[in-house]
């Protein structure tokens, strides 16, 4: 026993010496960060990282509102949630000079509507949300949102949809060709009717299981994020990811500097680290979305760089999920509750 104990105590002491550089508290999505990358960061900087996870933008917001602001340095909110967090005064700002690798951010991702000029956040990963279909079950045309909302016979009762109102109702809106955050009565009634009827053909609602149900075969079609679909395909699911003609949802997750960050300097060091092309590429190789950082291509695994999920065909229509104003949001909440009552 002593033989094991003493060396491990020494190792522990050495480890805490390395911790002298301090720590970093990261709040991230589930299955979204390879441990090797965190280890590499600790090795390079001596900063130890503690990571907690959440499963939706709204869960992140709820947790921060419930008093966790000040407990974390960085979070990884999606585009519209960056805007919401900023509006709620939950984000700190930095200047481009504070980040050595600020210049690595791809031009198109600097003046984004949710964080003009990148004052509080830097790109993490971006990708799309649509759906994937098991080609052994259904081999017809899948480039239409009708697959989910007016499914062909072969897919009825075998569909999983994401258990988040934002993405599912936005895709339904694309299907109907109505704008997001609509307050038009007829449009909302049509939306309500569409999802209520389609529900009869759905097997389940689930976000964190979106990949598993396709791999296990519990679902033959399912709404899913592009990288998650690529992973499902990698795990042997005979699926194809669709870019429906009605449009796909695009999103970008961002590393955002939280207000009252206990380790602000370390947080900026982490942002710099993630903006290194090699590290951004390592993240993309793991998560299988796109980086938003220049110079990553040479570090990407070829199958990730060329994956059909990350390379939408020319002319694909894309929309960001919008954050609706309060008086409109209650209508969408009511439709969602009505759908699941």
């Amino acid at each position, binding site marked *: 026993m002593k033989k094991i104990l003493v060396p491990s105590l020494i190792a522990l002491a050495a480890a805490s010496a390395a911790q002298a550089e301090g720590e970093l508290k990261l709040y991230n999505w589930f299955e979204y960060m390879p441990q090797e990358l965190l280890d590499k960061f600790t090795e390079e900087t001596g900063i130890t990282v503690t990571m907690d996870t959440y499963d939706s933008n709204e869960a992140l917001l709820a947790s921060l509102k419930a008093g966790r602001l000040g407990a974390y340095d960085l979070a990884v909110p999606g585009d519209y949630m960056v805007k919401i967090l900023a509006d709620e005064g939950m984000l700190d700002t930095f200047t481009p000079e504070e980040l050595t690798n600020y210049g690595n951010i791809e031009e198109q991702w600097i003046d984004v509507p949710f964080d003009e000029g990148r004052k509080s956040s830097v790109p993490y990963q971006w990708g799309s949300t649509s759906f994937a279909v098991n080609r052994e079950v259904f081999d017809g045309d899948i480039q239409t949102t009708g697959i989910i909302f007016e499914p062909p016979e072969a897919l009825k009762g075998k569909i999983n949809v994401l258990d988040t*109102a934002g993405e599912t109702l936005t895709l339904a809106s694309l299907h109907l060709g109505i704008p997001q955050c609509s307050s038009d009565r007829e449009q909302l009634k049509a939306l309500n009717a569409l999802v209520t009827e389609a529900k009869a053909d759905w097997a389940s609602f689930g976000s964190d299981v979106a990949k598993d149900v396709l791999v296990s075969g519990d679902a033959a079609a399912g709404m899913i994020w592009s990288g998650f679909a690529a992973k499902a395909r990698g795990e042997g699911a005979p699926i194809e990811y669709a870019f429906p003609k009605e449009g796909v949802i695009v999103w970008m997750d961002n590393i955002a500097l939280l207000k009252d960050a206990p380790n602000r300097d370390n947080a900026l060091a982490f942002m710099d680290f993630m903006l290194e092309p090699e590290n951004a590429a390592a993240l993309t190789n793991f998560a299988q979305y796109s980086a938003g950082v220049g110079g990553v291509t040479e570090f990407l695994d070829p199958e990730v760089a060329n994956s059909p999920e990350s390379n939408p065909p020319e002319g694909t229509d894309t929309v960001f999920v919008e954050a609706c104003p309060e008086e409109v949001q209650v209508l969408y909440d*009511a439709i969602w509750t009505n759908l699941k*009552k």
Partner: protein
Amino acid sequence: MAAMAPGGASSSEIYKGHAKRLLLPTWLVIGVFLLVPVALMATYSVLTKEFRGGVIWEFSLAAYDQFFLDRGLFGDEPPRIEWTYLTIFWRSIWQAGLATLLCLLIGFPTAWFIATRDARMRTVWLLIVTVPYWVNLLIRTVSMKFLIRDEGPLNAVLLWSGLIDQPLGLINTNLAVQLGLFYSYLPFMVLPIYAAVERYDFALSEAAADLYAGRWTTLRLVILPVVRPGLIAGCILVFVPSLGAFLAPDLLGGAKSFMIGSLIEEQFKGAAGNWPFGAAAAMILMSIVMVVLLVYARAQTREATA
């Protein structure tokens, strides 16, 4: 009588006068972890909601209004009874009630069987009943999902044996939820009933037989009244957690319909972000549980005074 302390005073006398101090830890735990959170919830339920989570400190009954009154999607119709949330509550109550009944039907004979073995075997059987509890509830529920899915072992065996020619399609149904609840909470039914049956004096059954009572009559008039506290305790222990369960509905039922638990979760964690409403729903749920417990308490008192 039996437990005399060295000084000659009975143990109850030794602790006399210390009762309040000895109860202090209990009151602290109940106060800090039960009364304070409940008071907080009650307060939140009558505050004004803040958009996207949080509360504004202004009194409002909007949450209860939303629960009970339907003013149409756009809020401009004359108020009617709101069935949405009552439906969700009724679904949960029905599911929990059914799970309780199933547990009772299986749990009573099981407990009876265990209690009538010899002492050594009793320990073994009790151990077997509690073994699943060494594993986390989430793991057990996920395992159940793997077991009953269309591609899972249950269907594989049935298909192989030729008993069925296509998968049962159990997953994502209410039946699957039932199975999950029943399996999760069965020991909560078995253990209290076992405790009651173990104390049962079998001479009573013999006496009943001597007085020409049939088996059914003995069960109804002699056994059931004696073990009733155990039955009621078991029913409460199964019903109450089933009512708030959200793991089984989410994982086995496919989260297609809200249960009370997931409805409340959605208010705090979901896009709705309506904390007062979540708090109000939690208060209404708690009231239902309180009513159940009060009925139980009254039944107990009546029995004690009878």
